[in-house]
C-alpha cells in the first residue's frame, strides 16, 4: 500500500536512530536492495485520531530523547573525566536531599504535562457516538467477516480472506507487491464518513487493526467491542490481525478500501443486485457434478486451512478427512459436525457462516473427494432440516 512505500519519508520525521539508519543504509548498499523500505516511523495517518496519535508519539519521542541525552551526557562526562586512570580521586558524598527532591518533582511535572494531550487523544479515540455507518466485524480462524448493519449497505454481508496464493508463501512463486496484505474482498467504506466498527469473534480472540486509522480493537468471542474511524483520504489501507489466534494468525490481513461517495453508492448497488441474484433457492435439487464443483470452492475457502487441500489434515490437532470415521460414517453426524462444530477444538460451528447450499455442497464434496468415494449426494433441504437441532 501507499502508506508502506518509501517515498513518504518526509523530512520532518526526525528520529534519534541515526546509528540504526546508518547501519541500515550500509546494509542496503551491501545487499543491493533496490526497493528497500526502511520505514522508521508510524504509518502516514489518514484520520484525525491517527494524526493526534502520530503527533503524541512524536512529542513523546522528543521528550524521551531529551531525557536520554541529558542523563547520558552526565554519564559520559563521568566516564571521561572521573576515571581512575586519569588519576581522579573518588569523592565521598552519598546523599543530597535537594537534588533528590528535584529529580522526583521534575519528572512528575513532565509526566503531568504529557498527561494532558495523552488524555484528550484517548477521549477522542473512544468516542464512538453518532456514526454514519456501522459495520460488524467478526473474526474467524483465519478470516474476517463483514456485515453492514446500518446505512445504505445494511444487510450486505461477506467474508474477507487472504488472497495471496499459497505458492508465494511457500516460495514457489515470486511475491507480489502486497504479499500477505491482500484479500479477496476488502471492507468498502465512503470517505469522510464516521464508520463505527463493532468487533466480535467466532472462535478465539482476534484483533482488527488498521494502523493508518489508529484503530486496533480486540474481537472477543461472545462479546461486542467498538471503535471508529473517519478516513479523510481515498485509498486502500492495510493492517493485520493483531492478537495471536492460532496457526494462521499471520495470514488474516485487514484491507479497507476508502472510496468516494459516488463509488460507494455504486458499490452498494452492485452488492444489492448480487445479493438478489445469488439468493439461493433452498429447495433447489442439485445434480452431483454441480454440487461437488460448488463444494470444492467452499472447502478451499473454509476448510483447507486446517484439513488441507488434500484432506490429510495436520493431525492430531487438525484431523484428516480423507478416510475419516465421521466423513465415511452416517451423513447426519457429518452434517451436524459442520453445522455445530466441536466445542473445545478449532472446529468451528459453520451454521452461521455458510448457507444450507454451501453446507450441503461441502459435506457432499468431502464424502466424494480423495479416496472417500461414497457417491452420495446431499440436498440443501436436508441441511435445513438439521439446523437448530
Amino acid at each position, binding site marked *: 500500500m501507499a502508506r508502506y512505500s518509501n517515498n513518504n519519508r518526509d523530512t520532518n520525521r526526525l528520529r534519534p*536512530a541515526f546509528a540504526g539508519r546508518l*547501519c541500515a543504509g550500509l*546494509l542496503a548498499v551491501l*545487499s543491493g536492495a533496490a526497493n528497500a523500505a*526502511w520505514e*522508521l*516511523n*508510524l*504509518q502516514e495517518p489518514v484520520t484525525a485520531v491517527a494524526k*493526534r*496519535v502520530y503527533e*503524541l*508519539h512524536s512529542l*513523546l519521542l522528543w*521528550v*524521551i530523547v531529551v531525557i536520554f541525552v541529558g*542523563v547520558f551526557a552526565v*554519564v559520559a562526562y563521568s*566516564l571521561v573525566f*572521573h*576515571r*581512575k586512570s586519569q588519576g581522579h580521586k*573518588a*569523592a565521598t558524598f*552519598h546523599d*543530597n536531599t535537594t537534588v533528590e527532591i528535584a*529529580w*522526583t518533582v521534575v*519528572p*512528575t511535572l513532565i*509526566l503531568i504535562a504529557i*498527561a494532558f494531550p*495523552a488524555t484528550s*487523544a484517548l477521549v477522542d*479515540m*473512544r468516542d464512538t457516538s453518532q456514526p454514519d455507518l456501522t459495520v460488524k466485524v467478526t473474526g474467524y480462524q483465519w478470516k474476517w467477516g463483514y456485515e453492514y448493519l446500518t446505512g445504505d449497505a445494511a444487510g450486505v454481508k461477506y467474508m474477507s480472506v487472504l488472497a495471496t496464493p499459497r505458492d*508465494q*508463501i511457500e516460495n514457489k512463486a515470486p511475491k507480489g507487491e502486497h*504479499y*500477505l496484505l491482500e484479500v479477496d474482498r476488502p471492507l468498502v467504506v465512503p470517505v469522510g464518513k464516521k464508520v463505527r466498527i463493532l468487533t466480535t469473534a467466532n472462535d*478465539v*480472540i482476534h*484483533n482488527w487493526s488498521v494502523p493508518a486509522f489508529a484503530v*486496533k480493537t480486540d474481537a*472477543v*468471542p*461472545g*462479546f461486542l*467491542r467498538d471503535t471508529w474511524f473517519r478516513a479523510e483520504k481515498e485509498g486502500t489501507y492495510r493492517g*493485520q490481525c*493483531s*492478537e*495471536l489466534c492460532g*496457526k494462521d494468525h*499471520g*495470514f488474516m490481513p485487514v484491507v479497507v478500501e476508502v472510496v468516494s461517495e459516488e463509488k460507494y453508492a455504486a458499490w452498494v448497488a452492485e452488492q444489492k443486485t448480487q445479493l438478489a441474484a445469488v439468493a439461493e433457492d433452498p429447495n433447489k435439487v442439485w445434480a452431483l457434478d454441480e454440487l461437488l464443483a460448488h463444494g470444492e470452492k467452499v472447502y478451499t475457502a473454509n476448510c483447507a486451512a486446517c484439513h488441507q487441500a488434500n484432506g490429510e489434515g*495436520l493431525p*492430531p*490437532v487438525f484431523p484428516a478427512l480423507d478416510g475419516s470415521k465421521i466423513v465415511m460414517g452416517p451423513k447426519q453426524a457429518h452434517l451436524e459436525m459442520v453445522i455445530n462444530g466441536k466445542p*473445545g477444538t478449532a472446529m468451528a460451528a459453520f451454521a452461521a457462516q455458510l448457507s444450507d447450499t454451501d453446507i450441503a455442497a461441502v459435506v457432499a464434496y468431502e464424502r466424494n473427494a480423495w479416496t472417500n468415494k461414497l457417491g452420495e449426494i446431499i440436498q440443501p433441504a436436508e441441511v435445513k432440516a438439521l439446523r437448530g437441532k
Partner: protein
Amino acid sequence: MQATSHAGYAGHHDHDSHGHPTGWKRWVTTTNHKDIGTMYLWFSFAMFLVGGAMSLILRAELFTPGLQYVSPEFYNQMLTLHALIMVFGAIMPAFVGFANWMIPMMIGASDMAFARMNNWSFWLLPPAAILLSASIFVPGGAAGTGWTLYPPLSIQMGMGMDMAIFAVHILGMSSIMGSINIVTTILNMRTPGMTLMKMPLFCWTWLVTGFLLIASMPILAGAVTMLLTDRHFGTSFFSAAGGGDPVLFQHIFWFFGHPEVYIIALPAFGVVSHVIPAFSRKPLFGYVSMVYAIAAIGLISFFVWAHHMYVTGIPLTGQLYFMYATMLIAIPTGVKVFNWVTTMWRGSLTFETPMLFALGFLVLFTIGGLTGLVLAMTAVDIQLQDTYYVVAHFHYVMVAGALFSAYAGLYFWLPKWTGHMYNEGLGKLHFWSSMIFFNIAFFPQHFLGLAGMPRRIPDYAQQFADFNVISGIGAFGFGFSQLLVLVVVFQAMKGGAKASSRPWDGAHGLEWTLPSPAPYHTFEDPPVFNQAEAHG
C-alpha cells in the same frame, strides 16, 4: 563451579563436623546454600541456552519473507516455549541462584533459614523444565498460545498445553518456597547490628521481590488451574457460551504478570547497585531513596496490570486510570537511574567486565524504560500494541535489565565463588559482542513496530524484510556470543590467578571479608558488622 566448591570444601574439611555425601549424591541431597546456588545458576544457564536456541529458530524463519524452515504451528510453539523457558527457567532461577549464594554471605548468616526446603525448591525445577521441553514431542505439540496462554486459544490446544500448565504449577511452588526462604532469612538471620536500613541493597531488592512472588505466583496458579478445568472438567470461567469471559483470564494473568516484570527487574537493580559503587570507588548515592523506590515500585506494580490490555475493550475510565498509574511507576524508576548516575559522578572509575555489564544495563534498561513511557500512553499504545515495538521494548528491559545485570553479578562474584580471577580479555569480548549484537538485533525492531509489523507471525509483508535481516544477524551474533561466558567460567573454575578475599578494591560488604573461594560453611558464628562494610 562444582570443582572449586569441592576444593573449597576440601580445604575446610576439618571444620566440617557433620560430613556430607560426595559425588552426585552431594548435589541431590545438599542443603548447603552455596551448592544450591550453584545448581540454580547452572540450571538457569542451561535453560538460557535452550530458550536461546528456540529464539534462533524464530529469527531464522523470519530472516526472509515466506515460510522456509518451520510450519506456522511450530513457530507458535517455539515463541511460546522461548518466553516461558526464558522467564521461568532462565531469568528467575538465575537470580534465585544469586540470592542463595550471596544473601547469607551478605548478611552474615550460616545458611538459608529453611535449608531442606531450599533443596526441594531447586529440585522441583528440573521436572518442570522437562515437562515444558518434552511437550514439543507429544501429539499436537507444545502450547502455541504465546506465554500469556490466553483462552479460548489455549482451550483449543492439545496435551502440550496441560504439560505447560503443570510446569507452571511446579515452577510456582518452587518460586513460592524459594521466596519464603529468602524473606525469612533476610528478616531473621542478619548479623547483630545490621539493621534493615544498613542491609546491602541486593537483600532489599530480594526482600521486596520475595513478597511480590508470594503474592503473585498463587494468582498465576489459580488462572492456569481455571484454564485446566475449562479444558477438561466442563467449567466456563473463560467461555462466553457458559457465562464466562475470556478477558477475565487476561485480568488475572496480568495481575500476576506485571509484578512478574518487577520480580525479574528488582534483583537486577540490586546487583547493579553493588557493582556500580564498587567500580566507582564511592558509596551508593541515595541508599535510603533507593530503598523507598524499590518498595514503591513493588507496590505500584500491583496496580498497573491492565496497561497490557488497552485494546481489549476496557472502559475509557479504566484506560485513563491505568495510564496515570503506569506513568507514576516511571518516577521511582527514574530515581534509581539518577542515583546510579550520581554514584558514578566524581567517582574513580575503572571498567572491568562487571562494570561494563552494569553500564550496558544502565544504557539499555534506560532505553527500555523510556519506550515503556511511550507505551504507557494509551492512545500510542493502541497503535503499537502487539507490534514489534513491544517486542523491542521488553527485550531491552528483560535482556538488558535482567541478563546484563546477571552477567555483571556473575563476573563480580565469580572470583569469590571459584577463588580465581576470570579472563578479563574474554570477559570484555563477551560484553562488547553482547552489547553490539543485542542492539543490532533489537533496535531495528522499534522501526518494524512503528511501521506496523505485528508480533508472533511467522511470515511478513515485504516492506519489513530489510530490518528483519539486520535483526536476524544481530540475534545470531548475540546468541553465539553467549557461549563465551561458558569458556570464561570453565577457565575460572579450573585455575587462573588466585583471587584475594577482596579482589575489587572498591567492593564493600561482609562477603568480601571471607576468603576466596568462600569456604563450604561460612559465618557459623555471626560476624561483627561495622559501618565500613555497610551499603556494599
